[in-house]
């Protein structure tokens, strides 16, 4: 009798990238899983996931944080073994991982790292004491709404505190949503909104900058470009730039620079800041063809955003399936970005581009805003792999390259 050794797939991180990858694999390999030829294990100590784009709604529209949370056991495919533990060591050469506090080696044949990115307050002295952000979690985001609800007048500073960070349009969105909030409240003339960015223009990609610059002017939102935040003095309520310029604020909602998961720093397969070095098309980790990284944790020079994590997960999942089944198909990620940017008052634009096509110029519209809302509605089901037909239809040749 021929004995087939079970192929073990390990996925680290049950966020946007990890969930879609595990769903795709579990759906398509259901027969192999049943026959014990394949196992899929997902590692993450979180028992609840959050719809991160919803942090903006929580922070600037007062949405209840509980509305954007979902229990992980409701999201994971039954074919996947969920281990509620964080990983603290990955040995790619010897093909094993270890979870926190355990000395047991858990071996794998294929590995997918999707551990995301999170705010790194260490990089900017004083920022933690002075700032409230909408990038850490839903509960922290709700502190912003508590704060703005009590503002009668004053100067609010928002913007990019450092690079990289996830969801490139989100600092701009915070400026537009604050403008909408105080306009509706009838006190916009008493509140100054200032947007800072280290880039030379309001949005890093010129085409989008051209679209949103007039909105900044029309809505009297001040912008300060080429501003490199260095330190913050919470007592004096003052930001100092690397060049020594200072900026006063009454309320500070800066987007902090982000960091990777701790275990990646100093590893041979990450860059000096801990971002995992991958091939930007097939996403394998440098010299390992059985290990991959997707989503915010990679060093790929595109936006850190959920749509990208999703499309990358589909590419990696498809290639693992192909390898297990012995087909020689090799799918590639096209570098497609699709970040929505809400411009306030029920309008939005999108930041759309690929590795080969520069970012398009898309005017804000209600239709775009509705598309963003549809995405919100289908988000959780899409992570279970229920909407791949829609993704394929929408992204066409950018879905993946084969």
């Amino acid at each position, binding site marked *: 009798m021929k004995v087939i050794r079970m192929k073990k797939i390990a996925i680290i991180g049950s966020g946007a990238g990890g969930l879609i990858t595990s769903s795709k694999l579990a759906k398509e390999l259901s027969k192999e899983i049943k026959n014990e030829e394949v196992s899929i294990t997902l590692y993450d100590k979180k028992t609840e996931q959050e719809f991160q784009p919803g942090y903006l709604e929580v922070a600037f529209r007062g949405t209840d944080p509980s509305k954007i949370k979902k229990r992980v056991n409701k999201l994971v495919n039954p074919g996947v073994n969920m281990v509620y533990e964080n990983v603290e060591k990955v040995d790619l050469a010897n093909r094993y991982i270890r979870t926190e506090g355990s000395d047991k080696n858990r071996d794998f044949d294929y590995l997918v790292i999707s551990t995301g990115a999170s705010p790194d307050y260490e990089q900017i002295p004083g920022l933690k004491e002075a700032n409230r952000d909408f990038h850490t979690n839903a509960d922290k985001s709700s502190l912003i709404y508590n704060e703005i609800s009590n503002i009668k007048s004053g100067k609010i500073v928002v913007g990019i505190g450092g690079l990289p960070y996830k969801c490139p349009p989100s600092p701009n969105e915070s400026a537009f949503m604050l403008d909408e909030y105080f306009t509706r409240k009838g006190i916009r003339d008493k509140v100054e909104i200032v947007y800072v960015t280290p880039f030379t223009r309001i949005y890093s990609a010129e085409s989008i900058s051209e679209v949103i610059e007039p909105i900044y002017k029309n809505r009297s939102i001040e912008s300060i*470009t080429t501003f490199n935040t260095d330190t913050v003095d919470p007592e004096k309520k003052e930001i100092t730039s690397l060049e020594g310029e200072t900026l006063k604020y009454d309320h500070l909602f800066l987007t902090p620079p982000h960091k990777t998961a701790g275990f990646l720093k100093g590893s041979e397969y990450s860059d000096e800041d801990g971002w995992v070095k991958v091939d930007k098309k097939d996403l394998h980790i440098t010299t390992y063809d059985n290990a991959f990284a997707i989503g915010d944790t990679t060093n790929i020079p595109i936006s850190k955003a959920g749509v990208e994590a999703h499309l990358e997960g589909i590419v990696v999942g498809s290639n693992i399936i192909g390898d297990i089944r012995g087909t020689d198909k090799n799918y590639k990620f096209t570098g497609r970005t699709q970040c929505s940017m809400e411009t306030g008052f029920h309008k939005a634009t999108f930041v759309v581009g690929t590795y080969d096509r520069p970012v398009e110029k898309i005017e804000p519209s209600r239709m775009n805003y509705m598309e963003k809302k549809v995405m919100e509605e289908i988000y959780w089901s899409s992570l279970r792999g229920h909407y791949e037909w829609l993704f394929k239809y929408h992204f066409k040749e950018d879905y993946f390259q084969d």
Partner: protein
Amino acid sequence: MATFNVNSIGTACPGPITDLIRAYKKAQNGDMIVLVANDPGVVPDAKIWCERTRNEFVSSKDTGDSLEITIKVTGKKA
């Protein structure tokens, strides 16, 4: 004095400027940043960036398949 070699080959706007800003954060006055990229937009972008941050745009060189930009860090507060 250190030299920061930044390879932004294969990245398009805003990739090279993102890499430049990240290297700048770690650099000190007197250090050099050598940015290699193949996005043609990087030269005017880096010039404007230097002007506004009061850093010195030393040179840009077209090596055929890439562009090499050298910047001297001079703009940081003491």
